[in-house]
């Protein structure tokens, strides 16, 4: 029964000129955006490979110099493009691509790609995610708004129920029919994206965590199910198809265009962040706290003197200059952890507001999960920053340890390739899908609740729908 209804719905849709035109439009836009995403990704990946290699070679090819000079010379860490950024570029355009890892200092990531673009980017960039989050729900609304209300106006609903069709079957059948219509567009698009993902890398079909792909697919299917169920609910409940359309379009606009901006303000209001000047001022005040620094070095000196049981630093079997450099680093690390940590925590608090706000606008949960699973959200940006900073600290520890070990009093110590080789190349391993989903537990629960709620509403409205 349900399948028969679904078949009728699909047949009905496929004979509608507007449906055919609309689906052609959505299909074309998805293919174009996918192609553009693929090109952007492959370009970026190539540029990343070149840059990463170059910075490594520069490090290794340093002439003989004091390790601390090498520490000041430093290396660059470049943020790799996530493969699934082809589908959802997320916040990537709005964060820097490179960070300089040097002595004494945790630098910020520089060069946001968005600064190299025109102001139209503020309308969106029509990437795969935008098609899925904005256009497809609209498409669903246009397919579903007249499902019940239209049949009521035509008088066919009366006919249907009089032959004994169960309202529950009717609702499910219609939902299935819409899913079929959607599948006609999404299946080819998905097949193309899988091919694109496969072609974009030499490392096999899916170099990225395959669970991410699976989870992303599940998130979008859930979201589409929510929209479909809501649309059918409104259609069953509205007195005319026109009213159903107005209500659904208003919902679409509020959900996909307005909500995120309002929530963004709310988040910033609840969890304010400082301006760069203020942030820098606070950071430098702590960083340049000479007293604390000297105290720290003194403590370390006393500790070492006691450990080696000697009277002065000159008598130590290690060079104290290396130790004090490292102590300076440790002091800096604490300050950086405190300030950057507080700032990034604040961002994450803000982003949690977005997740909770999905209670009123399910698109917010979908967008968060989509960015997260595509590896282009703030959480994973921070994950990268942390990895790069850990790498910087490892470099400093290696170099300062080398100074402590090899520097002789009254000599100019020069290190060479052997030391540069001791510093491994920077590799970044993105977190697994499970880690990402953990970050979005709120969004997952809220989206799940929307699904249950919307389906329940749809079923109830279908059974109580008035015949005319």
């Amino acid at each position, binding site marked *: 029964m349900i399948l028969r209804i679904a078949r009728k719905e699909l047949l009905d849709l496929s004979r509608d000129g507007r449906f055919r035109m609309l689906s052609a439009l959505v299909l074309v836009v998805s293919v174009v955006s996918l192609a553009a995403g693929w090109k952007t990704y492959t370009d970026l990946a190539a540029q990343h490979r070149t840059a990463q290699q*170059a910075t490594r070679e520069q490090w290794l090819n340093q002439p003989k110099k004091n390790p601390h000079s090498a520490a000041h010379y430093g290396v660059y860490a470049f943020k790799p493009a996530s493969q699934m950024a082809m589908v959802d570029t*997320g916040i990537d355009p709005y964060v820097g691509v490179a960070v300089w890892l040097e002595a004494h200092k945790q630098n910020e990531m520089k060069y946001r790609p968005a600064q190299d673009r025109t102001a139209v980017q*503020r309308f969106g960039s029509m990437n795969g995610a935008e098609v899925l989050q904005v*256009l497809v729900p609209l498409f669903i609304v246009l397919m579903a708004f007249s499902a019940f209300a239209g049949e009521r106006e035509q008088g066919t609903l009366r006919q249907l129920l009089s032959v004994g069709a169960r309202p529950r079957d009717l609702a499910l059948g219609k939902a299935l029919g819409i899913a079929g219509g959607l599948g006609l567009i999404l299946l080819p698009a998905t097949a193309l994206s899988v091919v694109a993902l496969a072609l974009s890398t030499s490392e096999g079909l899916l170099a990225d965590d395959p669970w991410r792909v699976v989870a992303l697919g599940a998130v979008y299917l859930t979201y589409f199910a929510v929209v479909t169920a809501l649309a059918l609910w409104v259609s069953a409940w509205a007195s005319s198809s026109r009213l159903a359309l107005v209500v659904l379009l208003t919902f679409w*606009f509020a959900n996909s265009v307005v909500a995120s901006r*309002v929530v963004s303000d709310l988040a910033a209001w609840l969890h304010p962040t400082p*301006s760069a000047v203020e942030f820098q001022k606070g950071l430098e005040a702590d960083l340049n706290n000479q007293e604390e620094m000297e105290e720290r070095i003194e403590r370390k000196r006393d500790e070492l003197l006691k450990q080696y049981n000697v009277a002065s630093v000159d008598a130590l079997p290690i060079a104290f200059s290396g130790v004090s450099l490292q102590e300076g680093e440790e002091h800096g690390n604490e300050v950086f952890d405190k300030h950057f940590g507080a700032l990034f925590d*604040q961002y994450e608090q803000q982003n949690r507001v977005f997740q909770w706000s999905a209670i009123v606008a399910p698109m917010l949960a979908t967008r968060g999960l989509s960015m997260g699973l595509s590896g282009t959200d703030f959480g994973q940006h921070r994950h990268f920053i942390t990895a790069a900073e850990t790498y910087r600290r490892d470099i400093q520890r290696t170099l300062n340890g080398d100074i402590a070990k090899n520097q002789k009093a009254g000599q100019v110590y020069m290190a060479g390739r052997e030391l540069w080789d001791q510093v491994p190349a920077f590799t970044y391993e993105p977190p697994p899908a499970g880690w990402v989903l953990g970050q979005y537990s709120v969004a997952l629960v809220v989206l799940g609740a929307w699904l249950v709620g919307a389906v329940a509403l749809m079923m109830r409205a279908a059974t109580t729908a008035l015949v005319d």
Partner: protein
Amino acid sequence: MLGRIIRHEWRTLGADATLWVVGLAFVAAIGYGVWNGARWVGFQQAALAASAAEEAERYARLETEVQELQRTGGKVSPFRDPRSPSNAGSRFAPRYATLPPGPLAPLAVGQSDLLPYYFKVSTESRDAIVGATEIENPQRLLVGRFDLAFVLIFFYPILILALCYNMLSAEQEQGTLALTLSQPLSLATLASGKVLLRAGVLVGTVVVCTLAALFIGGVDLAGPGALPRLGLWVAAVVAYGAFWFGLAMLVASFGLRSAANATVLASAWLVLVVVLPSVFNLAATTLFPVPSRMELVQAVRVASDDANAAGSKLLAGYYEDHPELATGDAAQAMTDFNVIRIAVNDDVERRVRPVVQRYEQQIAAQQRLVDGLRFVSPAVLMQSALYDIAGTGHARHQTFLQQVDAYHAAWRQFFTPLIFQKASFTNYAGTPRFEFDEETAGTVAGRVAPAVFGLAIPAIALVWFALARLARFPIVS
């Protein structure tokens, strides 16, 4: 006659409670948008005040330190000596070059949350200076702000279309159109009256509410350059409105049923406001991709490595270009780190310039493409007009960058001779200062005019075509 129709329309529309609710929501959105814009301007101003305070505090400290050292003749490590012109120019004395919010900045946040509005200018390379940006949660940058520009670009057309989609078809459907037109009255007059009332009310609401919000928000409307910009803003609001009213009129003139009109107009809105602008962005970034700045990072790195290796050889070349600096003991200068550094920085910048230019050319190519394409989408035209009027778009920021470049050059010119002379630097009060030279209203008008005409001309064409088409309107089916 027109006045009579307008009064009548006012009475019938006024009786519709839904319209009042929608209208109030719209007014609230305008107020919220302006408030939000004003808050962002306040944030920027606070940041600029903080930077000015930081600078003043730093200068006061340096000046006391200098006086102290002069008086006592005390010793200090050369890395910490405030009297070294090299230290002062690169690390101690840098001043902020700031871009204050324009006279009507609260009208549109625009790109100002993304593009840096203050730089700490020193003798360091341009690249080191211009890289800094304001702190912001990237997710907030991604979703954009709820500012007045957003309300005007997205909501305002929706309201126009909601008011107009059934202006003739509803009367036709309820049967009053025939009775009305059995009077000595042309359909064109009737349609014009209906549109004029709606346009008057809506444009009036936008203008009055915005002015009120600006006034309450404490924006100085009589300040320099504010009034002409306000005039431009009203022109943009009228022209954008006229486009959508014209479109609604044209669609109405085909005499379709209300539901069909609504479908056509909603699709037009979706395509012109949501789909096309994103597609333009996609086209710009795909046709003229700006390579990742990773390449620039590497170019700078390679250039500095080469320049540092060449070191004193570069300085010899530098002396050839700047013989006026070769005073004093040139031979000793050849070994001076700070002097060599100037030559090295100079060389690095020269080598990197072509790379930077490649980026700038690509961005300029994107901008040209969008500037051309925008005439296809009124939303993009309106955006460019609003951003330019508020001074939060690309163009004013470009002007700022040029002025910063000039200031950067002046800063270096001030310090370079002192560094070469190894002079003892005490003249902190005399370091060059930056003052943003605000664009004249004429410049802004020249930039906004194409957008306003680009909206007004199609609007006139739409209205003209609609009026011509009304002659064939099917009054009876």
